[in-house]
């Protein structure tokens, strides 16, 4: 390898810089786990919590295809006996009544910007006539 020394020094500098960000967050207490507010009085969602946490977007896409393309508009009953429509606006958001306190907590934390809300209406607020994008 040519210029071994220089390369290794460069690598070391890079690693220090890259890891310093993680280190900073770990040492200063700025890093806080997002805590989405769960709806009160409900004990079960349409699927278990782990699945919902990791794959709710997959489920939403499946619902969309079933409802729009296959015409399967049947409702889902949770373990608690609550009947849920396969719909973001008319299903999920009927229990999770606040986008800000539920959806946004993780999405902001993870810096993901799902485009759901470009068209779907969040409960209560978004009718302020803001230009979407």
């Amino acid at each position, binding site marked *: 390898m040519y210029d071994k020394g220089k390369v290794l020094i460069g690598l070391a500098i890079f690693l220090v810089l890259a890891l310093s960000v993680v280190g900073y967050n770990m040492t200063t207490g700025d890093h806080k786990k997002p805590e989405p507010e769960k709806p009160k009085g409900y004990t079960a969602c349409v699927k278990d919590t782990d699945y919902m946490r990791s794959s709710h977007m997959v489920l939403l896409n499946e619902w969309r295809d079933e409802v729009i*393309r*296959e*015409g399967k508009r049947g409702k889902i009953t949770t373990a608690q006996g609550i009947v849920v429509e396969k719909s973001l*606006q008319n299903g999920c958001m009927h229990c999770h009544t606040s986008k800000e306190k539920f959806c946004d907590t993780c999405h902001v934390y993870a810096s993901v910007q799902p485009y759901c809300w470009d068209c779907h*209406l969040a409960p209560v607020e978004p009718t302020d006539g*803001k230009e979407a*994008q």
Partner: protein
Amino acid sequence: MDNRRRKFLKLAGLTAAAGVAVPMLGSRAQAVSGHGAAPAAHGNDGHEAAPTGVRQGLVIDSGKFHDNPGLAEKCQKVCHDYHNVPKFPNSKDEIKWIWTDKFPNVFPDHSHYKKDARLSAMNILALCNHCDNPPCVRACPTGATFKNSDGVVMMDFHRCIGCRFCMAACPYGARSFNWRSPRGSENGKPFIKNYNQEFPSRMRGVVEKCSLCSWRTKQGKDPLCVEEANKGVEGAMVFGDLNDPHSEISQILRQRFTIQRKPSLGTKPSIFYII
């Protein structure tokens, strides 16, 4: 050497033959599909007219609308209000799922220059025809527009990339494009005045049109416009399965003279008009 040349020539010949044969097969499948053949190689992408199965449609009694001015506007209002259809100030940007127009514009094939006064004065209710042989579905490159199992031409707004091929393909002007964001406003006036929280809006760059209220008809209800029209005058609009010989709509179609929009184009509209 010779051997290789032979092989090459054979291969070239075969390739040329395949090049001619494959498009021919394709065009045959398309020609057949127009006449309601069973789903062939295309699968379920809506190119075929369903020979059996459900085919939802409407009969619109234009005479009843003519005798009841304002009824058509009411139908438009319930539809547009429910579906969060924006109202843009510039008529060039207009979004319409259901609208009215003069007879010669709706029925250019049936119009001539000696129309009686009633026909000339008529405002005809128009909407997507949910064609049995829909050109819009064929044009859509993403599958955002497709025909569902009820024979309704549906849109999956999530998939629409706004290419507007479907608008060019539709001979009825049944599709509208969101040139501006429907959530926006101008001079303090929002384009959607009162949002219906039960239905999404659209975003800029998406095409929209009537879905024959598929979200309602699945629950056994009539489309919103039909319900509203019949509140005003019983039988102004009838919704039902055109493929079911016993449905009310099929009975009406057997008894009354009806016309379709531009039947000569072969799109096979599912909306029929009593004039």
